[in-house]
């Protein structure tokens, strides 16, 4: 997995909201081409860490580098070029409610200003096909869509510029099991076609086990474990014991891997 070094590099990260300490001294390297699952209890700062990786929030101390570049203090052009290489799927989709499905996916392509409208039309249709959405839904507004469709269209938008790095925040939350299996398959297929680096924060053990190459566990403000699933579940920590080896966890693991 260690081909090409770190796509995201987190060094000595501390986060505090007022007096509340969220992260304490976190180091993390996301390798090129891997899927890193980020787990942790509610309030363990998964989403905060994701937002910091995206440059939406600043850590109190420490640095985050994406594609070897710091997220702060360099010029707009570089930052933009870097952002075009990342795709983000937000927890609730974050589709622009004023735009149709088609325009939502076409927006990042139009912003590039190198693609002509004919090319954009073909690409949008291709992305819709990729996430298994029928072309007749292209003119609908986000308000008319179901939760599963919003997630898939948001993924299509995240993939609009064929990013090398994809950040998924709770990709399967709010989907029924069948849809979330479909989602997992979708990501797996995309990985075979493109070299994707994926960081995924999730609560869903099925998704985590099915997709992750490595798992990072956040608990007690620190990263208590980082490594492949087998290594992680052998770590002795109350959260890990609870999350992976509880009633539900055992059942899921039994389905997926032979440990």
């Amino acid at each position, binding site marked *: 997995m260690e081909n090409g070094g*770190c796509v995201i590099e987190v060094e000595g990260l501390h986060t505090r909201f007022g007096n509340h300490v969220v992260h304490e001294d976190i180091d993390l390297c996301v390798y090129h081409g891997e899927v890193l699952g980020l787990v942790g209890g509610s309030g363990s700062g998964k989403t905060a860490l994701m937002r910091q990786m995206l440059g939406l929030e600043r850590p109190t101390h420490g640095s985050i*580098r994406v594609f070897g570049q710091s997220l702060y203090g360099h010029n707009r052009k570089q930052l933009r070029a870097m952002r075009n290489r990342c795709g983000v799927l937000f927890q609730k989709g974050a589709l622009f409610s004023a735009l149709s499905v088609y325009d939502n996916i076409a927006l990042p392509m139009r912003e590039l200003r190198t*693609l002509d409208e*004919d*090319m954009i039309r073909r690409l949008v249709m291709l*992305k819709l096909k*990729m996430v298994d959405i029928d072309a007749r839904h*292209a003119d609908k507004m986000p308000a008319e869509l179901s939760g599963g469709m919003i997630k898939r269209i948001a993924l299509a938008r995240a993939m609009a510029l*064929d990013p090398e790095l994809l950040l998924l925040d709770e990709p399967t939350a709010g989907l029924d099991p069948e849809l979330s299996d479909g989602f997992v398959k979708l990501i797996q297929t995309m990985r*075979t076609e493109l070299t994707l680096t994926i960081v995924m924060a999730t609560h869903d053990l099925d998704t985590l086990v099915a997709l992750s190459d490595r798992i990072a566990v956040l608990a007690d403000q620190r990263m208590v474990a980082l490594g492949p699933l087998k290594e992680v579940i052998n770590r002795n920590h109350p959260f890990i014991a609870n999350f992976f080896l509880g009633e539900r966890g055992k059942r899921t693991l039994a389905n997926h891997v032979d440990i």
Partner: protein
Amino acid sequence: MAEYRGNGSSLVLRRVTAEGGAPRLVLSGSCTLSALGQRLQPLSAKLAEYATDPALQWDLTEIAQMDNAGAVLLWRAWGERRPQHLLLRPEQEKALNLLEMMSPPPPPASRDWLWPVTALGKAVFLLWEHLTSMVILSGQLLLDALYLAVHPGRIPWREISANLYRTGAQALGITALVGFLIGVVLSFLSSRQLQMFGADIFIINILGISIIRELGPLLAAILVAGRSGSSMTAQLGVMRVTEELDALTVMGIPHSLRLVLPKVMALGIAMPLVVLWTSAIALAGGMVVAEIQLGLGYQFFLSKLPDSVPIANLWLGLGKGMVCGMVIALISCHFGLRIKSNTESLGEGTTNSVVTAITVVIIIDAIFAIIFSDVGIK
């Protein structure tokens, strides 16, 4: 630290002659959106040019990476079908299969020439819908009021008092500022005119009647419609977006009783008081200028005011205030409850609510002027 390297070089086209003498085009490098960048358009034209030669053999096996944009670029150059001679790697095969399966985008809807008629019809129906649902809401409020009269223990005092504070007390600053300035301007302009005729004393009549009867209530109502009306609509709208309204419904708490009625009652109580306040401040502003401009003393002004302005004007102004306040709250809540759960609708609903509220306030003022045309004027 291991530096992550970028995509490498962009797409390179190389024309060679294969064994057997057939021409062959070898593509190498990265065929991805980020690697192509600005070269996309010229490359597209060049590829299309090559594609006109049916004997040409396309060799894609040396392409390091090809993403969807790259695949579409080639696909379009080929005229949406595979060229006769094509060398591919398995993963490229899959990407092309996906393109082959892609359904053509739906044609744009044809233009409907009857659109002015349908648009007008829709507008009329929309107006009718607004009117009926407004009547339904008012009726519901009346029923709620009757219910509360029988069960006084269920009167939502806390909501009423919170709304009183928000729509009344917090509006005092802005209404005072606007009222004072209007009083100053009105007094200044009228006193100039009156001086010409030596009718200085009538400044009291002009200021008294116009401010107490018309300007005070109207100014206060317009300000409150913009200020509290918009916030009421937005509040209910956000409650719709976040499903709070639905949560109330399933708890068996009616919207009209808990959300609409307190707002209507609070604004009905607060508005006359705000009107009184605005009129008083506007008169004070006028009085200051009358003193400076015409030398009319404050004491003289105040003692003369009751003689020149019949008390009926004050009641008329307060009555107008109460009616306007309740109507503003009703309209704002009506629009707020109609908002659908998306941002577009939220913005549109708030705008419509404020515009409608201000228009209706002016209409109410006109109706009052006609009905009470012979009240309070000597």
